C-alpha cells in the first residue's frame, strides 16, 4: 500500500466520506439529486448544509412521508433522474417497504426492461447507544431475499465513498446501509473523483490460513480485532468484508474457505434468517468438501434491540464473541 502519496488522500470520517461522494457525484452529473427528512440539518452529518454547495434545488428536505419520497424517487428514476434518498434510520424502511419491494425492485422486470431504476436509498442502521428497538435494526438481510435490489454495507470511510459513487452511477436500485456507530470512524480517503469501489468485490482485510471470518458493516472492525487476538494465540484468521451483499463476491469468499476450510460469519443483525444463513447455505453447497467443520454464525440475539445499555451490549456480538466462535471453529476453545 502506497502510504507516501499523502496529497492524493484526505483524512476523513465516514460521514465526511459519504458527503464527499455525494458532492462529487452531484458535481459530475446534473441528474443526481437528494431527498430526505431534515437532510439539510443532517442528524449524522453526511448531507449537512450540502445545499449551500450544490444548490438549493438539489437537496430537498421532505415532509415526514417516506412512502411519498421513496415513491417519488422511483418516479424520478424511471424518467431520467438519479435520486439519492435518505431514510433517517434504516428501521423506517418498514413504512416505505412497498415502494422498495414491490416497486423499485420489480419495475424493470415487470415492464420487460422498458425502464431502468437508478435509485440509491441511504439508510443508517445498527445499534448506537441505546437507540432501542425501532432505531437500531440491521435491515440488510431482509432485502437480500428480494431480487432486483443491490445492497452495500460499507465498513469504513474509503469504502463508504467508493461504494456510494458506484451506487449512484449504477442503473439499478441500490440500498446503501451506513452504520451509525461508524460515522465518526476515520481513514485516509482517495480524493481523485475517478476513485470508486466497484459493487461486487470483497476486500480481504487480513490474510490467514486457519479460519475465514466473513464480517459485515459495523462488525468488520471487531472481526479484525478478533483476528488480532487470535493471532496472539497462534490462530491465523483471514478476514473478509464482502462490502456488497448483492452482488456478492462469491469467488473471494469461496477461495478463502477452500484455503482455510473453516468459516465464521459475523453480523449485527438477528441470527435467524440473517446474512450468515445465506452465506452458510452458499458455502456449504459450493465448498462442501473443503470444509473441515460446520460454519459458525455470530449474530445478534433473536430479540428486539433493548434500550438498557447492559442489555444492548449483551445483545450484539463483539470482538470477544467473534474470537470465541473462531476458536470453537478451529477446535481450540
Amino acid at each position, binding site marked *: 500500500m502506497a502510504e507516501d502519496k499523502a496529497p492524493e488522500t484526505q483524512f476523513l470520517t465516514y460521514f465526511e466520506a459519504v458527503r464527499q461522494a455525494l458532492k462529487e457525484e452531484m458535481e459530475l452529473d446534473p441528474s443526481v439529486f437528494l431527498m430526505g427528512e431534515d437532510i439539510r440539518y443532517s442528524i449524522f452529518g453526511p448531507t449537512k448544509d450540502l445545499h449551500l454547495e450544490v444548490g438549493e434545488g438539489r437537496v430537498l428536505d*421532505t415532509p415526514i412521508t417516506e412512502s411519498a419520497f421513496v415513491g417519488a424517487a422511483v418516479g424520478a428514476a424511471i424518467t431520467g433522474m438519479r435520486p439519492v434518498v435518505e431514510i433517517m434510520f434504516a428501521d423506517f424502511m418498514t413504512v416505505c417497504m412497498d*415502494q422498495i419491494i414491490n416497486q423499485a425492485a420489480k419495475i424493470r422486470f415487470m415492464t420487460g426492461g422498458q425502464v431502468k431504476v437508478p435509485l440509491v436509498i441511504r439508510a443508517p442502521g445498527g445499534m448506537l447507544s441505546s437507540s432501542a428497538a425501532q432505531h437500531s435494526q440491521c435491515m440488510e438481510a431482509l432485502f437480500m431475499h428480494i431480487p432486483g435490489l443491490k445492497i452495500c454495507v460499507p465498513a469504513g470511510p474509503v469504502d463508504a465513498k467508493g461504494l456510494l459513487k458506484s451506487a449512484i452511477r449504477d442503473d439499478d436500485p441500490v440500498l446503501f446501509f451506513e452504520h451509525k456507530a461508524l460515522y465518526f470512524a476515520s481513514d485516509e480517503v482517495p480524493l481523485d473523483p475517478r476513485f470508486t469501489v466497484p459493487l461486487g468485490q470483497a476486500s480481504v482485510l487480513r490474510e490467514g490460513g486457519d479460519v475465514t471470518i466473513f464480517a459485515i458493516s459495523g462488525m468488520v472492525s471487531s472481526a479484525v480485532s478478533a483476528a488480532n487476538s487470535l493471532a496472539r494465540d497462534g490462530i491465523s484468521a483471514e478476514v473478509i468484508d464482502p462490502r456488497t451483499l448483492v452482488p456478492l463476491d462469491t469467488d473471494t469468499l469461496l477461495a478463502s474457505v477452500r484455503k482455510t476450510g473453516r468459516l465464521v460469519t459475523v453480523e449485527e443483525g438477528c441470527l435467524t434468517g440473517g446474512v450468515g444463513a445465506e452465506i452458510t447455505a452458499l458455502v456449504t453447497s459450493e465448498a462442501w468438501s473443503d470444509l473441515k467443520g460446520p460454519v459458525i454464525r455470530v449474530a445478534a440475539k433473536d430479540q428486539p434491540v433493548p434500550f438498557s445499555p447492559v442489555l444492548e451490549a449483551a445483545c450484539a456480538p463483539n470482538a470477544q464473541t467473534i474470537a470465541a466462535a473462531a476458536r470453537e471453529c478451529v477446535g481450540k476453545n
Partner: protein
Amino acid sequence: MPEFDEELIMRLYKTMYTIRSFEEKVSEQAGMGMIPGFMIHLSVGQEAVAAGVCAALRQDDYIVSTHRGHGHLIAKGASTDRMMAELRGKETGYCRGRGGSMHITSVEVGGLGANGIVGAGLVIAPGAALSARLRGTDQVAVCFFGDGASNQGTFHEGLNLAATWKLPVVFVCENNGYGFSTPQSSHQSIGRISRRAEAYDMPGITVNGDDVLEVYLAASWAVERAREGAGPTLLEAVTRRWLGHYVDDEDDYRSAEEKAEFTLHDPIEQLERRCIEQGLTSTSQLERIRSEVDEEIERACAFAEESEEPSPEDDPGLIFSGGER
C-alpha cells in the same frame, strides 16, 4: 356547451370506442381462457375519463395508472396490438409478457405503468413531475386512481408532497362508487372525494365522468395550471364500472336495478347523440370510425395470437441492467 373542434371530438370518440372494443374483446377472450390469469380488471363504462384526460395531454406528458389500466394506456396512444400481446403473455407484448394486464406499461407513449398495488401510483406520479421540473421541461404527470385508493396512505402523502412542492401533477380520481365489493359509503365518510383537496389547499373539482367533454375541459384546465407551475389539482370523475371488478367476479354485491342503470349513462352513446344532435358529424362517419377500430382490434388479436411465447431461458438483464447475479 363550449365550442369543440370536430377533430377533437372525433378523436375522443375514437379513443373511447377503441377502449370499449379492446376490452370487450379481452372479456370475450378471457371467458374463453385465452388470457392467462384471473386478475384482469376492465373499465367498460369508464372510458370517458381515460379519453377526456389523456386528450388534454401531450405525448411527452406522463400518466401513472392502476390495476384497471388498459383504457388509460390506449388513450395515451399505445398500440392495441402490443397491448393485446402483453395480455396474452407474448414476447411481442409491451412488457415482453412479464407484466400482463396489471403491469401494462408503455414508456414510449408516457405510460409509466399500471400497478397491482392499490395506491402505489399516487407517490410515483409526483416523482415523475419532480423529474420534469428538475430536467427543466414543462411535462405534466397525471395520476389515475380509484375511490378505494383515495383512502390509502399514499393518497395523502402524494397529494401533500405535490402540493407542498407545487409539482405539475393532476390527480384524477375515477370514482366508480366501489372499491371491489365495498361501496363508497362503507369505505369513507364523504361523498365527493374532491373535498379532500382542502387538506392540501389544492383545487378540487368533481365532474361527470361519463361526459367526456366535461372531463376534457376540467382536465385541460388542471393540466395547463400544472404546466404553468401553479401546482397540482385533484379532479374527481364520477363514473360507473359496468362489469365485475375483475373478469371472474360474480358481482353479487350490486343489485340488478343498480346494474340496469349503468348503460343509461353510456359515455360513448352520449357523445354520439350529442354529435348528431348538434350536427357535428353524421351517423355514417361514426360508423366508419367504429368499423376502423373493430378492424384494428381484430388485427391486434391476430398479432397477439401469432406472436411467440417468451423463451423460458432467463434474461438476467431484466433483473439487473448489467445482468449481474
